[in-house]
Structure formats: structure tokens, C-alpha cells
């Protein structure tokens, strides 16, 4: 039988842990508990709820307004791990500098990042967006069309990335990818990157941007790019989307090829 005094002595430890990890607790509450609760109450999926909110609050045809509405929903109502406004700014800047003509996006989720990329593309550029989940893809399609991007600009492919990447050259007639944005399963970052290398779609100067490399994190991916020597790379340090205290990073890779 442990005496109560010894148990009381653990209070400082408990307090320390609570304070240290408060952001993670908040995140857990918003991303998991609230989601389960709302799923039970409304009977809709999280993405559908987000779509409803966007539909009722945003101006159709205006990507800016759609993005803002998304940000409001994600920070005030519920949590969806989009790229978020802060890291989005970095992404916008990279796109502006690069002005790529062929862009591949892995993991469209519900279309936030697709809209974000598509709006800063130059004229005549084409964005291929991959989404594995069919239900999410439906939402993403709606959001993209709502933002006013047609089939010529954005092509949504509903398939897992490891199936699509080998077919990009043959089925979609791509010669070279100028820009790749990765925001799907963190475990797939590395195999997909290697697949892209193998497919020969990356040329000198192609840029690959991978979100969430620190939290939830893709350690294998980071280790690989550190070692491979094919890339010039850096990690943009930022915080997790819609949360202040959790550190996260976005990796920016520029393919250099074998020298």
C-alpha cells in the first residue's frame, strides 16, 4: 500500500507533463475526440461537414475565400490536417519562384492544398492531384470545381500513389515533373520518392516539397534524402497547422541528378 504522501509527491511531475504536452492534448481532443463525437451526432464524415461549411460560407469561384473559410473551419470548428495558412505561404512562395508547368500532388485530401497550388500556377500549367480515398476525392472534386478550376488545370486521379506513379509516363503522357507536393501517408513519402526517381520524371531543378516531415514526421524519408546526395534540400521550420506549440517542418528538395 503506497502512502498518500508519496502519491502527492508525484503531483509536480503530473503538472509538468500536462504543461509540457498541452498542445498535444489539445490536438488529441480536437482531432480525435471531437471528430468521433460529431461523427456520431451528425452521421456525416468530417470532410462532408467541412464541405457543407465551405459551401454555405464561401464565395464560389473565389479560391481565396474558399481557403479562408477552410482555415476558419479548421481552427475554430474542427481539425483537418491541411497544409494551413502559414506553411501555405511558404508553398506559395516556392511556387512563385519556380513557376512550374507540370505539378504532381500526392494526397489531395479535401482539396485545400490543391486549390492553394492551382491558384498560384502560371498560365498553361497543369496539376495532377492524387487521392486514394474515393469519398474524399468526391469532396475534393467538388471543392476544386467550386473554386473555379476546370479539368484543364487540375486533374484529379483517384488511385493510390504507388499505382499511379509508374503509369504517369505511359498513361498520362508526362515527360517531366517540375514540382511535386507530398502530403499523403507519411510512410509512403520514401517509397514514392524512390519511385519518382526510378520513373525518370524528375529532371535537374525539379522541386519536391514534403509537408509534415517532423510531426507526425517521416524520419526515414529525411534520412534518405540526407544520404542520397541527389538533392539540394532544406527543412523549413514551422509549427503544425492550426496549432501553435507543435513544431513541424516542410522539406524542400531540389533534384540535382547524378553529378
Amino acid at each position: 500500500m503506497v502512502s498518500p504522501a508519496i502519491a502527492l509527491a508525484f503531483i509536480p511531475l503530473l503538472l509538468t507533463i500536462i504543461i509540457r504536452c498541452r498542445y498535444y492534448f489539445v490536438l488529441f481532443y480536437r482531432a480525435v475526440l471531437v471528430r468521433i463525437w460529431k461523427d456520431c451526432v451528425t452521421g456525416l464524415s468530417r470532410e462532408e461537414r467541412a464541405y457543407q461549411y465551405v459551401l454555405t460560407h464561401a464565395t464560389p469561384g473565389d479560391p481565396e475565400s474558399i481557403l479562408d473559410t477552410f482555415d476558419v473551419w479548421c481552427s475554430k470548428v474542427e481539425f483537418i490536417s491541411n497544409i494551413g495558412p502559414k506553411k501555405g505561404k511558404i508553398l506559395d512562395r516556392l511556387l512563385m519562384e519556380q513557376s512550374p508547368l507540370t505539378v504532381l500532388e500526392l494526397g489531395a485530401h479535401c482539396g485545400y492544398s490543391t486549390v492553394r497550388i492551382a491558384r498560384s500556377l502560371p498560365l498553361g500549367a497543369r496539376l495532377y492531384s492524387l487521392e486514394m480515398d474515393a469519398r474524399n476525392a468526391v469532396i475534393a472534386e467538388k471543392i476544386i470545381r467550386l473554386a473555379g478550376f476546370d479539368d484543364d488545370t487540375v486533374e484529379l486521379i483517384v488511385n493510390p500513389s504507388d499505382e499511379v506513379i509508374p503509369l504517369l509516363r505511359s498513361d498520362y503522357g508526362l515527360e517531366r515533373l517540375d514540382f511535386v507536393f507530398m502530403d499523403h501517408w507519411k510512410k509512403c513519402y520514401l517509397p514514392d520518392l524512390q519511385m519518382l526517381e526510378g520513373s525518370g520524371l524528375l529532371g535537374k531543378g525539379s522541386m519536391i516539397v514534403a509537408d509534415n516531415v517532423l510531426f507526425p514526421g517521416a524520419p526515414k524519408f529525411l534520412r534518405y534524402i540526407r544520404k542520397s546526395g541527389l538533392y539540394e534540400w532544406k527543412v523549413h521550420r514551422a509549427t503544425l497547422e492550426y496549432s501553435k506549440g507543435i513544431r513541424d517542418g516542410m522539406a524542400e528538395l531540389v533534384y540535382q541528378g547524378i553529378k
Partner: protein
Amino acid sequence: MEEEEEERNTKKKKKHGSAKREREEREEDGGKRTVKEKAREGRRRKHKRVETSSEPETSEEDELKEETEESDVRPESLTPEELEMLKEAVEEKKKLVQGLRGKPWPMKKKLVTLRESQEFVEKYEGALGKGKGRKLYAYKVMMSKKWMKFQRDFENFKTACIPWEMKIKEIESHFGSSVASYFIFLRWMYGINMILFCLTFGLVMVPEALMGRPYGTIPRKTVPRAEAPSAMDFAVLWDFGGYAQYSVLFYGYYNNQRAIGWLKFRMPLSYFLVGVGTVAYSYMVVIRTMARNANESGVGDDNSFNFSWKIFTSWDYLIGNPETADNKFASITTSFKEAILEEQESRKDDNIHLTRFLRVLANFLVLCCLAGSGYLIYFVVRRSQKFALEGLETHTWWERNEVNMVMSLLGMFCPMLFDVISALENYHPRVALQWQLGRIFALFLGNLYTFIIALMDEINLKREEEKIIKFNITTWEASLYNATGSENSTAPPVTFHPADVPRGPCWETMVGQEFVRLIISDTMTTYITLLIGDFLRAVLVRFLNYCWCWDLEAGFPSYSEFDVSGNVLGLIFNQGMIWMGAFYAPCLPALNVLRLHVSMYLQCWAVMCCNVPQERVFKASGSNNFYMAMLLVILFLSTLPAIYTIVTIPPSFDCGPFSGKKRMFDVIQETLESDFPAWFSKVFSYASNPGLVLPFILLMVLAIYYLQSTSKSYKEANVDLKKKLQTQNEENKRKNKLAALKAQTDLEEARAATQTAERPKNNNASPQRQHAEEEEDLGSSQRKNGRPPPSVRHQDGRPPATRAPVPRTLHPETHRSLGYLPGGGFPQQREPRMHRVPSLQRH
């Protein structure tokens, strides 16, 4: 340096003939040329000189050089004049090497020059002198070189002799000076404990073990019959009972015999004096170190020109091994980071009201936390007293060890909470460290004093017990005496085995045991936290990272940082316990030396293997004195209870070196009476008369006051002088700037003039010459650009007193005169020569 040299050169030029000037010039800029080139050039110049019709002496000299080159150092074949010449050249080279550092050349050129000059000197130095003399000369040179090498090796050896120096340097280069300061402190503490250990071991433990009565002769040196069966059990020994209790390790074992062995060693006196001596020595060392540190920090002029200092003086040119160079590189980078951070910190200004509010809030929270922990400990101590009254056997292990557990748990967790709270305050890390130290200090102090109060209660209990036992023993002895005496008065008294003799509780040994146990449990806690908190965590983070859903290394648990404040305080409080308990347990310094030794290696390893450098590295050299101040406070606070017990509580009647005396310090009086002549004790009694002591104390206070006020006035004078120097500096800078500006305009004018004068000459000159002309332009422009260096170097905070301001104002003139020596021919001849060589080589 450079200016001086050139000045000197110009002076010489004025004095000597043109030949000398010529050679000197060549020597000065001859860095790029090996002797061979010189010879070649000389030949070339000879051909050319036909057209330019220069001085004949130079050509002669060149021929000579050529000759020496071709003959490949055969000094026997040289004439005395040639030798003289060679000697002079060697001297020049040496001078060049010496003054090289001040030359405004690129580093590459300097290096090349240095190497070539050294080669030249090495080659021709031995050639000087003739026959025997030459050999002697060569021998001398060789010896001087050997000597230098030996000196360098000796320096290395000296560094290697400082214990753990390389380890600490390595840590410093990786973790910054704050972590290194902890290890330096640890080393310092180790040194002090070593001396304390030598004192107690050499003057108390060893004499008693060798010369005192052996184990088992008298009751205090024997395990009692009741405890004998379990006296060798590990559990008992681990608690320092059984055989460990009845050994030299503890106070109770010592006999009150006045002199022991054939040496007539005064054991009780020695025991007392060592006890006093350890404390006195500690006070002395701590205060002396504090004073020295204060001196160092007071004089330092680091604040101005910080970055220039770092840029120009950071690298250690003596480093010879690549690993050390890497470390040095890392450490310089770290120190730059520190400096930049410091600069940023000093520039920062935020919302002051918000910060103030947050700071007050943080302090409030910390106070709440302290009060809570204090109450908890108080509660636990009260409860444990209640348990002790009821009898410990009826309670569980948890309840019996409640006080220790709660104390160590609070000591472990509360600092973590403080750390989290201090994030609110937004202090500079060094200040934050001091706050953190202060808070943990308060916490530990509370814990320690609660412990002492509990001990005091126990001492009182033991003394009550002692009274009863004393009474019992007298009745026991009386009954014994009666039993033997009534039968037969002449029969020898019945002897009892010492283990059977009843004895008192001996509170001194009890106190010693408590302290030893505390030290042991503290050490265990430290090592276990180190192994679990750092090592296990590092292992988990490293290897679980392969199969975890987020990045453990960069993300949440990460590797731990080295906790400087906690470790320093642990060390300081540990030392306080040693000081407190050393009188009652002479083994404590030995234990502490062991502990420090182990923790030095363990922590060095742990910090290099499982910790990451702090995110905000900072300079902690200033905090050394803070540690010292805390140590002093702890020293005072820990000697207080020890002295109190020594002075007020009478020693136990049947154990320890002072048994049978009223007070422990009576031993001094006893020695004075019996070991010294009568007059001495008389003098002593006079001297200890309050009428003499009070004036003496008064005098001391006055002296201290006087010294303090003088030191204050010196400090003020220092500050004033510093200010003066600074203003003077600024003035000089201004003057220099003006002079430089003037010199520049003059130079430009002069160049324009010479160019217009030369234009017609250029037309019929060879293309080579034209090239040289360009080169000259380049060179002069370089010279022009090279103007700023004096002022720049002046800025970087060299102690201004070393450079007299007067010659500096002269420099521009000398420069100018160098830049365009009137008479046209000379500068052009000189500059082209300087630059033509490489261009020719290129062709």
C-alpha cells in the same frame, strides 16, 4: 607593425645608398621569390639594366646571389663579404618572418612568404660561419630548435597533466561553456574533497586503525552480542550497521585515550583539529576563489568589440591534431552563436508590462509550489514521528521510508515544474539559469533543514535513552562489584567479554550513519535518474524511431538536454551534507571523493552519448561566481548545525574520542594544560580574555572597512580610466580618418601627376614594361584600399594603451612618402619589379 617597419625602411633608405635601398626593397617584397627566381631575375635585370642604366652595385650583388645559387651553398668558397651579405639576407628573412603578422597581405601570400623565408633561413643559416665556428653555429641553431620543440611538448604535457582537461574541452566544444562550467566546477570540488579526504584519512582514520587499540578490545570497538549474528549481513552493512558501524568509519569507534602508539599521537586532539580544519580550509578556499573570480570579471573588457575579438583571436594556432581542430572549430562556432544571442538579447525590448506581470505570476506559482512541498515534507515528518512512537515494525516498507522517498521525489520533480514555469518569464538563459538555481536552492534548503530538525529530535530522544542506560550501568556495575567483593576481595575481578558490556546509544554515530545513508541514497538516485532519464530515453528514442509513427528525434520526446542548474545544485548540496556530517563520520570525504570520481566519468560519458546541446547555447563564465556564492551560503548553513551540536550537546559517555568530557572542545584545554609549558597556558588564558579579544575584533572590523572603502575607490578610478581611454580612442580614430582621407587625395594627385609625366616614356617602352605599369596601378590602388586597416585594427579592441597615439598620426605621412617618392624613377622601378616576376612566370 607594418607601419613601423616601413617607417624604418624609409629611414634606412634615407641613410644608406641606393644599393642598400634596392636590396631592402627586394627583401621586403621578396616573399614570392625563392632564391632561384631571384637569381634568374637578377640575370634578367642585368640585361635590362643596359637600357635603364641603373646602379652598378645592385647588378654585382645579383651576380653574387646567382653565384651562391649555382654553387649550391658551398660556404668555403665564399668570400667574407659574401658571407656577410648572406648573413644579412638571413637576418632580413628572419625579420620578415617576425613582422609578417602585421603585413596587410592576403593570408595565402603570407603563408607562402612564411614558408619560403623559413626555407631560406634553414638552408643558409648553417652555411654561415667557417669551419669549427660554422659547426658550432649549426649546432646552436639545432639546439635552439630542439629547445623550442621541447618547450612546446612540455606545454602539451602540462595540459595533459590537468585531470580531465581534454574531456572538458571536448564537452565545451560540443555543448558550450555552460555545460563545461559544470564540469569545471565538479573538478574543482573534486580537488577540495581530495584534500579533505587526505586530512581525515591521514590524521584520523589511519592512526586510529594502526596505532589505536584493535577491534574487540573494548566495548565501543566490538559489535554487541545481540547484533552479532546479523552483523555481516549485506542488508545491515548496506545500512552501515553491524561491522561497518563499529569501525573507523564512524565517530563511536574512536577511543578517548589521550595519546596512542609509540608516536604518542594525540588522537582526540587530532580528531577535533581535523574537524575544525576541514571547515576552516573550505571557508578559506571558497572565499579565495570567489575573490579571484571577482577580480577576473572586474578587469575584463570583453564587452566592447566583442565580435572583432572573436574573429581575430579565436583560432588556436597551436592545434596540431585534426580532431582537436574540429573541436576548436565547433567551439568557435558555438561561441559565435553565444555572442550573437547575447547581442540579440541586449537589443530586445518587448511589452515590459506583460513581461513584468508574467514574471510576478511565475514567482507566485513557484512560491505556491515551494509552500506545498514544504508542507508535504512537514506532514510526512510528523507522521513518521508518530510511526516511530508506535513502533516501526507494524508499518510497511513504504511508510517507513516515506520521508526519504518524498524528499527525493520532490527534489526530482519540483525542479522540472520550475523549469516549465520559468518559460513564462522570458529571461535571458543565463539569468533564467540563476533564477532556476535560486528556486531549487530554496527547495533543497527546505528539505535539508527539515531533515536536520528531524535529526535533532532524534538526538534528544537518544540522550534521554542514554541517561536511563547510564543509570542502569552504574547499578549493574555496583551489583557486579558487590557480587565479587562479598565473596573474596582478593580474587581478580570477573572479566566480561566486551561484547556483553551494556552500552549507551551513542547519538554521534547515529548522526553519522544518517548522513552516510543520505549520501548513498542521493548518489543512487542521481545515477539511476541519469541512466533512466538520459540513457534509456536516448536508447528508446534512437531505436524506436525506426518503427514509430512520428519522428521521435526531432519531435516530442527527443533527446534530453544537460540540466546544468539541477546538477550544480545537487553537487553543492551534496557538499553541504559532507561538511555537516564529516565530523561524526570521518569516512564521508572518502565516500564523496569516490562519488565525484565516478560521476565525473559517468556524466562525461552520458553527456557526450545521450544529450543534445541546448537549443540556446550561452556563455556561463560569469556564473562561476554565482556557484561559489551558493557554495559559501551552503557552507555556512551546514556548519551552523554541526557547530551547534559540538558546542551545546555533551558527548556520549562511552563512545568517541571525547567520551568522559563535558564538552567536545574541552580537549584543547586539556592539551594546553598537560602538553604545553605552564606559561603558555597562562598566555593563552590572558589572550582569550574578553578585554583583549574585543579590541582585536574591533580592529579587524575597522581594517575590513578600510580595505573595502579603498577597493571601492580603486574601482571608481578604474572606471574613470576606462572612460578616458575610450574617449582618447575615439579621438584618435577621428584624427586617423582625417589623415587617411588627406593621404588618399594626395596619393591620387600624385598618381595623376606621375601618369601624365610618364605617358611619353611609355610610348617607346617595351610591352612588358607597359604590363608592369598596369600592375603598378593595381598595386597602388591596393595600397589605397589597404589604407583602412590601421583604423580597423584599431577598432577591434586591442588594449589601446599599448599603441601610442603619437606615431599613428605620423603614419599617413610615411605612407604618402612611400606611395609617391618624388624623383619619378624610383617607385616605378620598384613596383614593376615586384609584380613582373609572376607575370613572367605565367608567360
